């Protein structure tokens, strides 16, 4: 880990509505010794809208950033936002596959991009490069009541041809990370079902209905909180939760946290540091019930004693009244 330096491309959303994702990712990276540097003067990846104009144009918007990173002498970029990730992966895929496409893209750029940067999701960096052992080692706190539905969203690891990470239908990387920090993970069937993505603005109703399904399936699975890895998912499930309740007549009140925020809680960071105050549906109850490992151990021992006593009591009772 020590030798590898990553470019960290936070993306536009993490400067605005998802600022807490940015905060928590940086904290976790620091805590786990991930060496990262933000490329200077990065610009928007182009996202979905650019793809409706032209593929070369869209790739150029993405490649401008990759080219900056390449010039910095780095070969891997960690990307928290799946939309940015896909924009980079698509640009990379088509530029590598098709030389004329690459030329056309480079014609639009000031600085040519030579396809030397590999984009990885933050999730992938943590799961594959840092590893579960390291992730577990850093844990200081236990959140005993938390039952989380890990929600990966539609494009974190799909399509497999581009994502080249985890299973496209039943991904497990986030499950494993959350388990590794001691959180109870629910068997959630809607891990990769789409929440409505970028249509929040122009097609509110549609997004509300899709998101409602995701939330209700999470609750069905027994979750009291949803972990996400995508700013759009977070926005649709959290910020729009009241809209959802209005549109679909539901009565949801389930906190939606970035998985890095949950990691931060287990690592003992304060709610403020993790930007938990930015959540619309409050996750404060988890902060309140959070215990240090030592406290938790003590509590467990006491409970065990209590149990043993009870068992003993029962046994003596049984002996007395055979």
């Amino acid at each position, binding site marked *: 880990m020590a030798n590898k330096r990553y470019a960290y491309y936070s993306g536009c959303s993490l400067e605005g509505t998802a600022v807490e994702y940015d905060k928590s990712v940086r904290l976790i990276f620091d805590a786990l010794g991930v060496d990262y540097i933000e490329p200077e003067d990065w610009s928007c990846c182009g996202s979905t809208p650019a793809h409706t104009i032209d593929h070369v144009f869209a790739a150029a918007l993405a490649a401008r950033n990759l080219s900056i990173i390449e010039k910095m002498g780095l070969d891997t970029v960690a990307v928290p936002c799946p939309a940015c990730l896909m924009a980079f992966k698509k640009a990379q895929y088509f530029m590598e596959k098709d030389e004329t496409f690459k030329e056309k893209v480079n014609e639009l750029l000031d600085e040519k991009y030579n396809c030397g940067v590999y984009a990885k999701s933050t999730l992938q960096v943590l799961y594959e490069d840092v590893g579960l052992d390291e992730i577990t080692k850093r844990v200081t706190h236990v959140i005993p009541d938390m039952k989380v539905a890990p929600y990966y969203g539609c494009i974190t690891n799909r399509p497999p*041809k581009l994502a080249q990470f985890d299973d496209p239908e039943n991904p497990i990387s986030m499950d494993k990370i959350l388990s590794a920090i001691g959180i109870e993970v629910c068997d959630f069937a809607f891990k990769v079902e789409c929440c409505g993505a970028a249509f929040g603005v122009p097609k509110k109703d549609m997004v509300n209905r899709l998101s409602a399904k995701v939330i209700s399936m999470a609750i069905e699975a027994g979750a009291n909180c949803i972990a996400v890895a995508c700013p759009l998912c977070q926005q649709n499930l959290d910020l729009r939760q009241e809209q959802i309740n209005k549109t679909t007549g539901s009565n949801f009140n389930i906190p939606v946290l970035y998985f890095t925020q949950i990691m931060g809680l287990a690592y003992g960071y304060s709610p403020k540091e993790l930007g938990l105050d930015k959540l619309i549906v409050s996750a404060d109850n988890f902060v309140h019930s959070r215990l240090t490992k030592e406290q938790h151990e003590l509590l467990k021992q006491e409970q065990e004693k209590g149990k043993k006593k009870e068992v003993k009591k029962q046994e003596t009772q049984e002996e007395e009244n055979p």
Partner: protein
Amino acid sequence: MKTINLTESTDWNFIEEVKKESGQDPSLCYQCGNCTAGCPYSNFFDYPVSQVMRLIQTGQKETILTSKAIWLCATCETCTTRCPCEIDVAHIMDVLRIMARRENKVSEKDIKTFYDSFLDSIKKFGRLYEVGTLISYNLRSGHLFTDSDLGPKVLAHNKIHFLPKKIRGSEKVAKIFERYQESLKKHG
């Protein structure tokens, strides 16, 4: 239901164009319907994805390019991931959107307007300026109060910047837009 005269209405060039621009072969589709079955947006589409594929196979250009379906697709990649024929369906949808724009046939004005506002923001500032994009969208689309219910929440949680962050290289990003426009003129 109207009769489609396949002799007259099949646009063979269109089939070839889609094939060329997407790098995908629509004739590989055997209409199993898996894309429609998995599409989270099927309920909102005027033509389910598998029918969009069928419309390509039968060269029904006008129907597809004016459809709502191609604009309601969010590129969630479910269809591409599950297609048994390994067709990148989501990419084909992307190509159809590009074609619809080019031919000025966009049916879902609101989505196009939103995308345009988004891109304007990038052109101007280099990055997405969320508030500006929303206001610009609301003004252009005529839906003045879209998401105004979210405003107080966003404000209360201090989630948004009211002033755009302009990056130093914003002209460089704008140049990408300009060069693209020029290249269009050059190549027709």
